[in-house]
């Protein structure tokens, strides 16, 4: 089973995306490339946040083809954004509630997730009071409580300073492979990709430049 993506996206005369790739539907896959290479565009298309011409298959299911477009809220994905990844008007606890209430039954247990992400002491905090690292851990917890079938992460560590980033990479390296769920991880940092991913796809100018 794989995630098969064939997309062509234009912005004006230039290609934003021109890819035909398969991503293994287990383990961590890194999308590596400089900024403007199309990795975030690809991730957003995979989430259904942007729409380009082409097809996306998730295993035997179709997420997008000529006639069909499954909307983001029906794809059951977890998405960890760069920077702010919580609803700003709700506390961490109520952000988790928000995700949980809209999720089907699934393998991720709330207490266990809260424990593993180390956010038990932050539950009553508002997002604006969290540090960058705390925000990302809470965002990951929030994403997992949606019981996703696929976890998408868009440069989750780019807003952190270097020491915090090192600790988070180690923590993620420990967490992600144990989730039992495919993860697509966007980064421009080669060391980060090497540390976290089994498979690395390199993008350049919206095209696959290497694996």
């Amino acid at each position, binding site marked *: 089973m794989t995630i098969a993506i064939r997309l062509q996206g234009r912005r004006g005369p230039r290609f934003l995306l021109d890819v035909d790739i398969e991503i293994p539907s287990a383990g961590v896959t890194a999308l590596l490339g400089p900024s403007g290479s199309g990795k975030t565009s690809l991730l957003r298309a995979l989430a259904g*946040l942007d729409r380009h011409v082409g097809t996306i298959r998730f295993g035997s299911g179709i997420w997008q083809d000529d006639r069909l477009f499954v*909307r983001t*809220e029906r794809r059951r*994905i977890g*998405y960890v954004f760069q920077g702010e990844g919580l*609803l*700003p008007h709700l506390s961490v606890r109520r952000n988790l509630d*928000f995700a949980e209430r809209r999720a089907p039954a699934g393998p991720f247990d709330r207490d266990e997730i809260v424990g593993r992400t180390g956010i038990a002491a932050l539950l009553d905090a508002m997002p604006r009071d969290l540090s960058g690292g705390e925000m990302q851990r809470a965002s990951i917890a929030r994403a997992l409580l*949606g019981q996703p079938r696929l976890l998408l992460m868009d440069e989750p560590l780019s807003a952190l300073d270097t020491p915090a980033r090192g600790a988070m990479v180690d923590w993620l390296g420990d967490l992600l492979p144990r989730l039992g769920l495919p993860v697509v991880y966007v980064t421009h940092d080669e060391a980060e990709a090497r540390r976290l991913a089994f498979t690395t796809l390199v993008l350049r100018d919206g095209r696959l430049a290497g694996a």
Partner: protein
Amino acid sequence: MTLVLLTTVELALVTTLWLLLLATPLAWWLARSQHWAKEIVGAITALPLVLPPTVIGFYLLIALGPDSPLMALLQPFGVRTLAFTFTGLVIGSIFYSLPFAVQPLRTAFEAIGDRPLELATTMGAGPWDRFVHVALPLARRGFLSASILVFAHTIGEFGVVLMIGGNIPGRTEVLSTRIFQLVESLQFGEAHRIAAWLVVFSFAALLALLLVDRRIGTPRP
């Protein structure tokens, strides 16, 4: 006097409620849509800001009068005209204060940005769910501002009310038209009293507005 005050407050309240209901979807569309006609609709919405109130009043008087095609549609329901009625006054006020509801709401909706809405989508929230549980709470400051502005602006309206309402005591007479009436009949003492109260009220409303902006408007990074 009490009756005039009651009519005025009732008009302002009813207008505010209707406008929150009508302006919310309009402001949401203006804030989120990419449609080419968006700014045209935006300009039409803002027209009452620059039109003389007598122009709005004049057209409404024609539209709500007994000879209009609009009223012909309402004939079967026993309505012959809405001119010089309280309902007519409400309709006039809705048009007159429309920009004061749409503008703060549109600004508040625009300030939300894409991120919280996209976040909610990835958490499984559909369009209506996102609107109710993300957009509305994040735009609460806009709703408060819009309510204060519309309420105060409706109390302060004169030209439209006079045209469409006709200043009928007990039905369409409001504070602003009462002052006009009092001055016409040289009762300056009474006019002074009402005028002074309106100055105090308007000042309080504007002060409240500024405080709302300060308190609830958390600065975004």
